[in-house]
C-alpha cells in the first residue's frame, strides 16, 4: 500500500517533534511565563510578517516555473494562503498593544537569531531548490496549532488580559482547517523523491528553529528577568 505524501511527511515529522515538544513545554510551563509572553508575541509578530514575505517569494518563484507540475500547484495554493493570513500580523499588533507595547517598540525589537534562521532558511530552499519546500515550514507551523483550552489556562496562569490572546485563539479555531488544506494540496502533487527529502529537511529545520526560539527567549529571561523587551531592543 502506498503512503500519501502528507502521511509520509508526518511520519518523518513525528520522528523529530520531540525536539519541539521539549522546548515548547519548557517555555509554556515556566513559572515566569507572564514576563516572557510579551516577548514571545513580539517575536511571533516577526515570524508572521516574515512568513507573508516568504510565501510571496515562494509563490513568485513557482510562477516562473510554468512547466513544472509541482510549481503549478504550489503557486495558486500560496496565493490563497497569503490572502488567508494577510491581516494576521496586524491583529497580533493590536493584541500586543493591549499589553502596553507600542507598534514602534515591536518594530524596534531585534528578531532573535532563531527567528531569522527559521524564516531565512526557507528563502534558500524556495529560491535555490524548489518553492514546494515552503510546505515543510507551513505544515509544521500550522500542524501544531494552539488549543483554546490551553490558551485559556495560560491566560489564567499568567493573569494577562484576554485581549492579548485574541490572535492566538483565532489560530486555534482556523489552523486545523489550514492543515487539512495543506495535507490535501501536498497529496495532489506529483512529488519526486528529491522533493520529498527537501520537504522533510525543511520541516526538521522548522522544528529545530522554533525550539531554538523558545530556548533563546528562556535564555534572555535568565540573563535579564525584568526587561527582556528592552534587551531585545538593545541587542
Amino acid at each position, binding site marked *: 500500500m502506498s*503512503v500519501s505524501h502528507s502521511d*509520509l511527511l508526518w*511520519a*518523518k515529522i513525528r*520522528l*523529530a*517533534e*520531540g*525536539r*519541539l*515538544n*521539549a522546548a*515548547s*513545554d519548557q517555555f*509554556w*510551563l515556566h513559572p515566569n511565563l507572564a514576563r516572557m509572553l510579551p516577548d514571545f508575541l513580539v517575536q*511571533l509578530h516577526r*515570524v*508572521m510578517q516574515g*512568513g507573508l514575505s516568504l510565501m510571496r517569494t515562494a509563490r513568485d518563484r513557482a510562477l516562473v516555473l510554468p512547466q513544472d507540475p509541482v510549481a503549478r500547484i504550489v503557486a495558486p495554493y500560496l496565493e490563497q494562503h497569503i490572502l488567508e*493570513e494577510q491581516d*494576521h500580523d496586524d491583529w497580533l499588533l493590536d493584541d500586543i498593544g493591549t499589553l502596553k507595547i507600542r507598534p514602534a517598540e515591536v518594530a524596534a525589537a531585534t528578531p532573535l537569531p532563531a527567528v531569522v534562521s*527559521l524564516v531565512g532558511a526557507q528563502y534558500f530552499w524556495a529560491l535555490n531548490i524548489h518553492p514546494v519546500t515552503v510546505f515543510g515550514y*507551513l505544515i509544521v*507551523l*500550522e500542524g*501544531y*496549532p*494552539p*488549543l483554546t483550552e*490551553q*490558551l485559556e489556562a*495560560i491566560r489564567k496562569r499568567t493573569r494577562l488580559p484576554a485581549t492579548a490572546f485574541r490572535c*492566538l485563539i483565532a*489560530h*486555534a479555531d482556523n*489552523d486545523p482547517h489550514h492543515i487539512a488544506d495543506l495535507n490535501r494540496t501536498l497529496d495532489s502533487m506529483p512529488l519526486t523523491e528529491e522533493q520529498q*527529502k527537501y520537504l*522533510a*529537511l525543511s520541516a*526538521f*529545520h522548522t*522544528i*529545530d528553529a*522554533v*525550539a531554538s*526560539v523558545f530556548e533563546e527567549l528562556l535564555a534572555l529571561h535568565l540573563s535579564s528577568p525584568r526587561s527582556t523587551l528592552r534587551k531585545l531592543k538593545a541587542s
Partner: protein
Amino acid sequence: MATKKAALKKATKKAPAKKPAVKKTAVKKPKTSNLDRLVAADVIPQANIADQDAKVINKLSAAEVNTLIKLRKKLGDAPFATKASTRPNFPV
C-alpha cells in the same frame, strides 16, 4: 672547499628506492540500516516499531537521518519521544 664537496655529495646522493605500493584490501563493513542508526542514537525506541514505520525509516535519505540524529543530540538525556503537554507554538 671541503664544505662544497660535501654539499655536492649530498646533492648527488641517490634517493632511496621506492617501496612497491601495497594494495589495500578493502574490508567491507556490513551496511547499517537507518533503523539501526536511529535506534542506536536513541531517536526512536527499539521496541514497538510497526512494519510500516520501519519501511518509512529505512527509506530516509542519509541527510534526513543525520538531521534527526543532530536534533536528538540537542535534547541531551531527555527522552526524545515526548508528547507535548502544551503547544501554542508559532501559528502563521
